[in-house]
């Protein structure tokens, strides 16, 4: 573990990514300390340009853009982590079952995944939120479900290659039960690509959340999220461009950081995946 972080810091991509991700996480955790104003409080200064009083200006209701951005990071990090968690755990279980048992189990699971995969992820998340109703919890569930097929495929492919290894035959010849074979022998050997996939998936989850919020299906006003801030800025973009620029830059930087971190982690854990994609 220590060696892992040492290698990550030696890698330029990983170093920049890790710094960015840490920055986002710190901002999210310490939002009340960092924010200069109450993100929901409406002041008398409408569409104020960035300056001394308001670091990044105010929006059309006179709310401080900087403080809303800081609190919006909470939503992004929270949604990114929980949704990726749902996708990762669901995909891990399904991928292990499909890859290990093969045959009918494999066919049923993978055809289901193909169906999920066939839809563009935003459209599918949109449909799920439309059915469940728009709120943060449902958004997270929707984004999580959308991520499941990616994880299932990654894990299944790796399980197939591990299953062909002689140590799995050896374990079976000893008389180890299936459950134990999967947990003790297959799982630890498929972790590397799985962790890489998890890191990379965080950024897509954040992006999908921003898109859903932009469409008004994610977090509900007046609470801030980067996507909903962008959405609200549409009407006043020409009068107050900072209301659009601030959340856009935040989204870009956060996603870039998570992707760079993911690439760094991949380079360390999975050398054979380098330069693929």
């Amino acid at each position, binding site marked *: 573990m220590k060696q892992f972080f040492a290698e990550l810091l030696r890698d330029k991509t990983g170093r920049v990514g890790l710094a960015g991700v840490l920055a986002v996480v710190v901002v999210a955790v310490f939002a009340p300390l960092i924010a200069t104003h109450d993100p929901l409080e409406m002041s008398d200064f409408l569409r104020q340009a960035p300056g001394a009083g308001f670091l990044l200006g105010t929006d059309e209701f006179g709310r401080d853009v900087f403080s809303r951005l800081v609190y919006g990071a909470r939503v992004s990090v929270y949604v990114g982590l929980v949704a990726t968690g749902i996708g990762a755990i669901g995909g891990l279980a399904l991928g292990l079952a499909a890859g290990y048992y093969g045959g009918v189990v494999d066919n049923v699971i993978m055809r289901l995944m193909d169906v999920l995969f066939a839809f563009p992820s935003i459209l599918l998340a949109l449909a799920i939120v439309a059915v469940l109703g728009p709120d943060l919890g449902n958004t997270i569930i929707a984004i999580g479900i959308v991520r499941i097929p990616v994880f299932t495929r990654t894990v299944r492919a790796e399980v197939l290659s591990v299953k062909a*290894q*002689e*140590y799995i*035959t*050896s*374990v*079976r*010849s*000893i*008389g*180890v*039960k299936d459950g*134990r074979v999967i947990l*003790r*022998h297959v799982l*630890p*050997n498929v972790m590397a690509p799985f962790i890489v996939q998890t890191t990379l998936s965080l950024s897509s989850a954040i992006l999908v959340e921003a898109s859903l919020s932009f469409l008004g299906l994610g977090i509900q006003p007046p609470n801030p999220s980067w996507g909903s801030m962008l959405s609200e800025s549409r009407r006043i973009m020409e009068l107050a461009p900072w209301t659009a620029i601030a959340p856009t830059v935040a989204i870009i930087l956060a996603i870039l950081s998570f992707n760079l971190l993911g690439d760094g982690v991949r380079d360390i854990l999975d050398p054979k995946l380098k330069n693929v994609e």
Partner: protein
Amino acid sequence: MSALLEVEGLQKHFPVRSGVFNRITGAIRVVEGVSFSVDKGKTFALVGESGCGKTTAGRTILRLHEPTGGSVRLAGVDLAALEGEGLRTARRDMQMVFQNPFGSLNPRMKVGKLLEEPLVVHGIASGKRAQEMVDAMMEKVGLAAEFGRRYPHQFSGGQRQRIAIARALMCSPKLVIADEPVSALDVSIQSQILNLLVDLRTELGLTYVFISHDLNVVRRISDAIGVMYLGRLVERAETGALYERPLHPYSEALLSAVPSLEPSKRKERIILSGDVPNPASPPPGCVFHPRCPKAMEVCRRSVPPDKEPSPGRLVACHLY
């Protein structure tokens, strides 16, 4: 003395599927009617060139592959009839040592845990008692007890094969099938591992089925030998008798390839022409006839029956 392992007419066919509906359109007969028996404490060697089905035969005996036909009896119990939990329990008595010591150990598990696993899985011991048994076994195969805290990649090939052997012996099996256990190792290490196997056989009263293509290795360790060609047992004999006078033309060709230190015993090398035929479409008659230097007209037409030229010896050839 009674036979511990009796293999009777063992068959393993792999289906060939083709077409849109994945229908079974043929079969590759990898193992076709192999019979032999091994007495307790003895070693039976299966020899033959690559692809002759010896590894598949070994794995089918252990039910790592489902047999297509024939029977396998271990200490009188028909292994083919066992299912689920019964089969799992029976695995205690039969273990395998694999060819590649770099692939047969889980790279993410410490050696101590690898050795402990058979004990835990079969409910033989756990905790401190298991630890003692692991330490004792490691000493028996010539490894220091503190190696238990290391991972397999920290060991050399020979040491790993010792670990694999120790693992196979943890639950005190009656039968060990060793599939080319030394062919991946350096010659100097081969000898150490062979000695270890011989010592353990005496010490623990083990019975081996030893699969190999190396006739020098086989000569040292086995009591009886079965020569396989294209999934069939073409000759079966006591080790001494086979090396003294091989009967089947294929055995003769194999043995002529073994170098001898005594010039007077050197025989003319018999070079076989051609390749092993495809097991999906074996030649008619005797499967060896296209390459056999002594092939006769009858060999092309009819399959040679198993003959017993002397007690305990078997040869499938029209010459006898």
